């Protein structure tokens, strides 16, 4: 059975050190699409975390019974069923929010983080450890989405979670909203800047250069 230390490590490693978005560059599609406001980013984060934790637990429970040749199909069926449940719950109780998230809740089924954790970890580890590991990955994804969503909403519309924070110039304040922040490229810029910042602070994450830059005259 896993010790307390390895559980703690499985939970905290994916937050920054092994973050699925900033280190492994997974789940970028939804990270770009739903981060125009904090509310949608947070909802998708919670949905994904729930799905990844439950599917890791379920798959880990039946890991000795899954035939190896059809394991991906079994995993996807389990993940997709959970996604449908989450989608229905959102539509039942948070209808407006689910409309704004449009197709992206259903697309959790294709999110690389979910299948990655179940395929590489839950398939060969006991349920508790798998679920803690999945929770760590989900929280790491949520952390990045929340940060980017907060930045985009704050600078794109001067609000945070729907509450006006920066007074808009149209309404007599001083802040001119940056419409670029509401377009998809800004998420790329923010994510790139975030990855740059993290890798500057933790140089061990940086990949080795693919080829050395040639010497130039002025560099001598």
């Amino acid at each position: 059975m896993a010790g307390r230390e390895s559980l703690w490590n499985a939970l905290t490693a994916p937050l920054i050190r092994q973050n699925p978005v900033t280190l492994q560059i997974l789940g970028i599609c939804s990270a770009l699409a739903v981060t125009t406001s904090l509310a949608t980013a947070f909802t998708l984060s919670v949905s994904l975390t729930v799905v990844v934790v439950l599917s890791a637990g379920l798959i880990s429970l039946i890991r000795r019974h899954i035939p190896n040749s059809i394991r991906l199909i079994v995993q996807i069926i389990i993940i997709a069923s959970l996604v449908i449940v989450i989608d229905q719950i959102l539509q039942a109780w948070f209808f407006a929010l689910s409309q704004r998230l449009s197709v992206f809740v259903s697309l959790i089924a294709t999110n690389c983080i979910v299948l990655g954790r179940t395929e590489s970890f839950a398939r060969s580890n006991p349920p508790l450890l798998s679920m803690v590991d999945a929770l760590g990955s989900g929280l790491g994804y949520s952390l990045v989405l929340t940060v980017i969503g907060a930045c985009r909403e704050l600078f794109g519309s001067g609000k945070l979670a729907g509450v006006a924070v920066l007074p808009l110039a149209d309404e007599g304040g001083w802040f001119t909203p940056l419409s670029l922040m509401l377009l998809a490229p800004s998420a790329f810029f923010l994510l790139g800047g975030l990855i740059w910042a993290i890798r500057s602070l933790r140089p061990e994450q940086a990949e080795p250069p693919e080829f050395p830059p040639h010497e130039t005259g002025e560099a001598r």
Partner: protein
Amino acid sequence: MTRGLWDRETVALLLLAAVLPLAVTWLFYAGAAGMTRLVFVLAVAGFWHLVFMLARAQPPSVAGALAALAIAVLAPLDLGPIPLLLGVSFGVVAGELVFGGWGRNVVHPAAVTLAFLGFGFPAAPWPDLPVQLGWSAAAVALLGVALGVMPWRVVACGAAVLFAGRSVLPLETPVLTAAAVALVLLVGDPVTSAATRLGRWLNGLLYGALVLLFALGWQGAAPVQIAVSAAMLATLAAPLLDELAISLWLARRKRLG
């Protein structure tokens, strides 16, 4: 590249000397407001060059002043200092300095800034360039080509397409003025334009064709907006055009054995 006198800063200084006619003409028309704007952009760009010199030992370049002039001339008007600060910082850092400074960048920092400001603040009006600025751009092109610091194929082909288009299509003078200014300030940059012979011809051709296309088909676009968008797309396509030229050359070599 260092050959005797010719290092990166020589090229940058000669380019700066070549754009002086345009800078003087523009300052004459823009007056004190233009001067303030130019000094502000220069200060922001210089600050980032300084930061990267201290943090990464990256030699600063006089070419920062070229980008600053292009931004001051072409950026939308009525932006407060904070949007301009954001745009210039983004363009100079993400367009040039993170790649290792002038000479290693893929896109022109001024083009990145202008795209950022154009998309970020769509309500801000684009400047109207006086027609004399277009004539000064011709002087810039002549000087740059004569000094050997501007790729003449790009400039010549771009200008040829524009004038050919004007003779057959209803191209208005403001569009032509803006296109000429963007041609010498953004497209004719020796770093971000194509580097092969065929690539340079194609680069100029693409820029001219895009200006004509936008001028005819883009309803409600300002002349400077048309020119800057065409310049941005032509700059982005430059590596592709080079790749094309190199592939063609390799294929011909293979066929000839």
